[in-house]
């Protein structure tokens, strides 16, 4: 694992920045337009929130004033300077010392958060996380492929804990560390920032909206992949608000896979690229309340930088981890079958197989008239198809945890109580609906039976223990998990049954099973 390229990142950083800038400038068809667009967007942004970036604001004002009169050479020079600056800002750091330290320290740090007064527990940190976190999937294949090309992990995204938990899972499974883009706002969180900063995270400033910056980001990712840096993208874009497993992906960054592969062929140093879909499944989601409210308020699009959710509150993280520590297997990461950028399945020895199981040369897909050709329109279509294949993998590899199953049964009760009611009317019935215990058990049994049938046909996965658990056990486990973490109770045990409390959260947790058809799908017609 120590031979992974990321261990030499710091030596290569300058040359990466150099390559990114020169590629961005080389590909710029209209420097004037790019500079004007950058100046316009930055002035607009900085005018609204100047903060301590006054100098930056002045610089862009100056650029806007003078760019029209500049010579072509001057424009290219400014573009080069700006690209270089952005690339340097994006480029992260990888400190092998922090890495080896953190793989030991991270579990301890988490444990100390769990039980700050009991240092003896810290010794058991690793073992505790081992217990909470279950990883499943073709690990041997992934370990073998890590030596044959660049792994690009593309998991579902529901929490700011994702990258930390995912990074831990990779390390534990003997998979190499990855480089990944993380919102710059996360770097202000002291808890996450330290580890991310030194573990190959690069900074994505989502406030910057102009083309040039997007080009720098995309090129940066392509250069890393081409140089063999194993990477991690959350192709859903931001954390999923509704908790419905991603059905559409943002393709921008994923498209860098095929580009990197093609460029490596053209340079006659082929670098294979393997996409690895994965689902990250939580018994409890750290930010559930904020996310679902954001979804329901339909402000998801505008508020994609939430600065004030649960992940910025250390006490919430601590409560969550304590909760999770009481249940084994409360986080399940499931890796899907790896595929090449053209959706072909890949074997451990790096062969691409078509749908009929024939070996096919991946290089042939970017060949035209006997040459390896870069073609944006073609690659956009390959990437669309890749996105669809990844979403199909997500649906198959979604892990049904007790909280989702019990929430699906509970939500079905709500819908039966108010037939024909629209989603928002349903959600208003907080603390009004009582479910007798035997009825809830029966409903949970129904839902679980459906989930079992789906698992039997490879369309869903049941969390360990769920298949043979009695409905009452699933209900107990869910109620225990919810109560004490979520400030408003989701399901409260009363005489002879349960009161349905925070309906938004019932919706949130059942949404995880919406794509599989077990849960209600909040965005699909015909329900």
């Amino acid at each position: 694992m120590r031979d992974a390229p990321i261990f030499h990142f710091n030596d290569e950083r300058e040359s990466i920045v150099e390559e990114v800038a020169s590629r961005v400038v080389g590909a710029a068809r209209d420097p004037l337009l790019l500079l004007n667009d950058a100046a316009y967007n930055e002035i607009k942004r900085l005018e609204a929130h100047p903060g301590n970036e006054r100098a930056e604001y002045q610089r862009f004002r100056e650029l806007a004033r003078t760019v029209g009169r500049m010579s072509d050479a001057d424009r290219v020079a400014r573009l080069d300077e700006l690209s270089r600056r952005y690339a340097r800002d994006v480029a992260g750091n990888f400190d092998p010392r922090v890495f080896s330290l953190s793989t030991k320290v991270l579990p301890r740090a988490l444990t100390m958060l769990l039980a700050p007064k009991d240092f003896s527990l810290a010794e058991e940190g690793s073992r505790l996380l081992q217990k909470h976190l279950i990883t499943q999937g073709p690990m041997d294949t992934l370990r073998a492929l890590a030596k044959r090309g660049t792994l690009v992990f593309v998991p579902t995204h529901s929490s700011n804990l994702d990258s930390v938990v995912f990074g831990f899972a990779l390390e534990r499974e003997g998979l190499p560390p990855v480089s990944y883009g993380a919102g710059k706002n996360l770097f202000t969180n002291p808890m996450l920032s330290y580890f991310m900063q030194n573990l190959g995270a690069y900074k994505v400033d989502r406030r910057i909206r102009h083309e040039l910056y997007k080009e720098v980001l995309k090129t940066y990712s392509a250069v890393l992949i081409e140089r063999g840096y194993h990477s991690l993208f959350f192709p859903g874009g931001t954390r999923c608000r509704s908790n419905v497993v991603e059905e559409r992906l943002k393709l921008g960054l994923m498209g860098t896979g095929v580009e990197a592969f093609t460029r490596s062929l053209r340079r006659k140093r082929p670098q294979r690229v393997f996409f690895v879909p994965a689902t990250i499944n939580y018994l409890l989601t750290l930010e559930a309340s904020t996310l679902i409210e954001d979804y329901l308020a339909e402000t998801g699009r505008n508020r994609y930088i939430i600065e004030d959710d649960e992940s910025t509150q250390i006490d919430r993280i601590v409560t969550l981890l304590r909760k999770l520590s009481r249940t084994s297997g409360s986080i399940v990461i499931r890796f899907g079958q790896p595929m090449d950028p053209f959706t072909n399945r890949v074997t451990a020895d790096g062969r691409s197989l078509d749908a009929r199981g024939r070996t096919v040369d991946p290089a042939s897909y970017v060949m035209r008239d006997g040459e390896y050709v870069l073609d944006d329109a073609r690659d956009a279509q390959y990437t669309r198809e890749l996105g669809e294949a990844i979403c199909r993998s997500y649906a198959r590899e979604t892990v049904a945890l007790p909280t989702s199953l019990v929430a699906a049964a509970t939500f079905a009760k709500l819908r039966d109580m108010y037939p024909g009611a629209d989603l928002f009317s349903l959600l208003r019935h907080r603390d009004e609906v009582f479910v007798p215990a035997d009825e809830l058990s029966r409903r949970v049994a129904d839902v679980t039976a459906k989930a079992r049938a789906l698992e039997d046909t490879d369309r869903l996965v049941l969390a360990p223990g769920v298949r043979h658990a009695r409905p009452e056990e699933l209900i107990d486990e869910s109620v225990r998990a919810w109560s004490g973490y979520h400030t408003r109770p989701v399901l409260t045990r009363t005489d002879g049954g349960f009161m349905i409390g925070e309906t938004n959260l019932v919706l949130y947790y059942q949404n995880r099973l919406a794509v599989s058809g077990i849960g209600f799908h909040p965005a699909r017609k015909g329900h």
Partner: protein
Amino acid sequence: MRNTIGVVGGGRWGVALAHAAHRAGREVVLWSRRSEKAVALDGIEQVDGFRTLAARATLVLVAVPSEVVRDVARQLGDAIDGSHYVVHGIRGLSGEGLTPISEVIREETPCRRVGALGGPGVADDLIAGRPGVLAVASRFPEVTHAVRDALESPSLRVSITPDLTGVEWASALIGCLLVAAGFGRSIGVSPGVLAGLLTRGVHEASRIGAAAGAEASTFFSVAGIADVMAALAGDERPEVRLGAALGDGLFGEAARARVGQRVEAPTLVPRVVAFAKERRIDVPVFRTLAAAMAGTMNRDEILATLMSRG
């Protein structure tokens, strides 16, 4: 550069496409199930294996009957790789699930860059070099351009679209409507009424197509309504002949025997009606067509149903 065009299928349509490519100045290699020579023209060479075809051509045009396309594609898949473009000219959707043929090709071969031909091109015109019009669809612009380069000549115009799903569904569904056209004409429906019914039919087809992911506008393009106009203007399409046989009171095998050629519509229409029903799309024209083909309605009832509201 592999400038040669591959054609899979030695039937009338395959031969017509080979002629079109030949007329556009391209070398052609043609594979046919039959051993006898399909075309006797310099520059069109018949080969007996897919490996030879795949080694010489990047663009492969598939023109075989829909019932054998899966088998043929599987064999072709052993010979081609990701560098080939496979474009089919088959009007039909496969199986109960109405799978587009391009999907079948993707399932059976390693090829990703697939496309489909559509539109009112007629085999006889292509062979004789009379002016004709075709549509080609692929989500890969390089594929549509390759087809245009391969086939377009002063006597053939090729229009291109990225809406692959649209062209495949339009070709299949409009084929069904042509049965209605033949039927209506044979029972003496006036041209105005027939035009009205068929236009409704095209609207229904566009709604069905949209539910399958197609652009509705494709149904009103060269790949869609142009087919209906060509058939009404007198192009001899087997679907129209089947409709005429139905109008004469022939059903099932008897009707098929009169046409003398395989037509997809009888298997396709009931599946399309089921597909629409599942998605709550009202399709009176297709429903009536299904009844007409099954022989469960007579001429007067059919006409009365189509003229009624609701």
